[in-house]
């Protein structure tokens, strides 16, 4: 308890101050605000999807063969697909899928990678070396390639695509947590905790893991954007969502047969991906710039 009072108080204050500085810098930067607005809009669309979509049944896959491949109009804002389904409604339903799958990939990768990295960094020595060598082996694959192999083996489905991406994604967080843990393990408050006899597992859970959290959350913001593209890429290869799921990547995949004659088919799902990923990148970039002291000095030229 003594150790907690001595360290947790100032540490928490410090963390709050950091967050305030980041928030202030972000508000000053119009681009990051734009990113935040984009993300909030997409989240709202994901939540309210069924109430917003003009044709919810078509979004879930019900065909309407009277209205095949119609160009955008007031009735069908983004046109219709080869089964006559409203693309606008399907994109709205797809928002939920995209956000949920990418969040699942990133969250699971963190849940798996962060503790491993913290343990490797704190214990160092042999255990740490083993964990990090294994991590290196996974990092040796170009990211989407290993996911492709795993997804191809498991068979194409959304769940398998997510699993495949988790398999390729966790080592990045292990490495990040590892370097953070290395930097923290000999700080005075950790040594103090050790000196008064706090056990190693408790130190890792109470002091090392929280210290790795901030950089990992920033990385996660940026990664959500990449995860959306990765999920879409697997669906595009036919290894992700299967019809009639209103998944953006799958829509582009089916759209590729038709889009040279019917430009709207693949264009709008792709624009949805682009906008959402731009949102995450704008936000992540601004946070990164806000916390990088090297970039905060004045300019000469």
């Amino acid at each position: 308890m003594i150790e907690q009072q001595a360290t947790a108080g100032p540490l928490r204050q410090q963390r709050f101050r950091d967050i305030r500085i980041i928030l202030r810098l972000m508000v000053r930067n119009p681009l990051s605000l734009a990113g935040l607005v984009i993300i909030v809009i997409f989240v709202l669309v994901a939540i309210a999807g069924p109430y917003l979509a003009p044709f919810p049944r078509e979004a879930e896959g019900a065909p309407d063969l009277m209205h095949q491949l119609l160009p955008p109009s007031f009735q069908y804002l983004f046109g219709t697909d080869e089964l006559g389904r409203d693309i606008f409604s399907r994109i709205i339903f797809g928002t939920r899928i995209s956000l949920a799958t990418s969040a699942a990939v990133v969250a699971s990768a963190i849940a798996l990678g962060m503790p491993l990295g913290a343990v490797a960094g704190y214990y160092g020595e042999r255990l740490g070396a083993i964990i990090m060598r294994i991590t290196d082996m996974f990092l040796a694959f170009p990211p989407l390639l290993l996911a492709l192999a795993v997804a191809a083996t498991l068979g194409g489905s959304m769940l398998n695509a997510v699993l495949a991406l988790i398999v390729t994604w966790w080592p990045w967080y292990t490495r990040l947590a590892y370097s953070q843990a290395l930097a923290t393990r000999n700080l005075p408050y950790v040594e103090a905790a050790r000196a008064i006899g706090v056990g190693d597992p408790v130190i890792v859970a109470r002091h090392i893991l929280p210290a790795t959290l901030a950089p990992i959350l920033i990385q996660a913001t940026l990664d959500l954007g990449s995860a959306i593209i990765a999920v879409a890429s697997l669906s595009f290869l036919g290894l992700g969502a299967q019809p009639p799921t209103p998944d953006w990547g799958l829509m582009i995949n089916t759209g590729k047969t038709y889009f040279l004659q019917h430009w709207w088919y693949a264009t709008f799902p792709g624009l949805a991906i682009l906008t959402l990923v731009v949102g995450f990148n704008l936000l992540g970039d601004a946070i990164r710039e806000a916390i990088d002291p090297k970039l905060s000095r004045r300019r000469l030229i």
Partner: protein
Amino acid sequence: MVKGLGQYVVRRVAHAIVVILGVILITFIVSHVIPGNPAALWVGAHPTAQQIQAAKETLGLDKPLPVQFYIYITNLLRGDLGVSIRTHNPVLSDVAVGLAATLELIIVAFIMAVTAGILLGVYSAAHRDRVPDHFGRVVAIFGVSMAPFWLAMILQLVFSQALGLFPLGGRLTTSVSIIYPVRPITGFNLIDSLIEGNFIAFTDTLWHIFLPALALAAYPFGLTVRMIRTMMIEVLQENYTRSALAWGLPSRMILFKYALRNAVSSTVIALGMSFAYALTGAFLDEIIFVWPGLGTYTALSILALDYPAIMGTVIVVAIFYVTINLLVDIFQAFLDPRVTL
């Protein structure tokens, strides 16, 4: 210093070998251990019971795992990746042909990305926090946020289908490939046609490669702009920049002659990072433009459930990628002695 470099190279090569063994182990686990039915996948669509049994025996799936791994790794060392179900060629030769075409595409894309990226990055940094900078940053962010296959489709739609400026896909016009065929020497069409003085095939390949390379260039372009901008901003705050300004050197000279030189090394790192992305990005890009590289090969393999071809491509590309990383690291150590410390 040379001694340090030698030791570093030895250490780095040893590390790469361990990593390659790991890569082999992981692909083995993926193809032999995780559930899913590798034997059925190996046979292809609509297998019969006898075929599956035969596949199990060829793959050695009835033997204990360590024995399976031994067979797997010895086959691999002999360059035996199995036979493609779809093309009936040895997977290794299929992959070698595809790899050259894919690399050609990536290299052209990188040349485009780096040239444009450096210019815009310097421009952005020189006008930091003003309108041109915001423009540069937004362009860069759009570059890294684009799904490569979607950008490929949009380019194809606009520049090939609507404007008719570029071909819809392929690597050579059919008539050109018949009248002025390119003999494969290096596997790179652009180089092979130049060696033989076949300028018609050369320009025709350039004409075909432009759009797919452009689609692939978006990501490394965005990354280069960001890296160059960040590094330039740092360098422009250094004392030597201040001195150069005080001496009255023109700002263009400061930017391009002094500052840019110091930003280049980090750009090399950025490009190394985006190479992995470009490899898989090219996979998706090629499908749209029917570029006869590894991506088109893999996509057709996935459609045909051609499992040996998929796993063969994955392992060759992964080993190739580890090797490239090794070379980049050694090259960097050669340029910057601090790396070997």
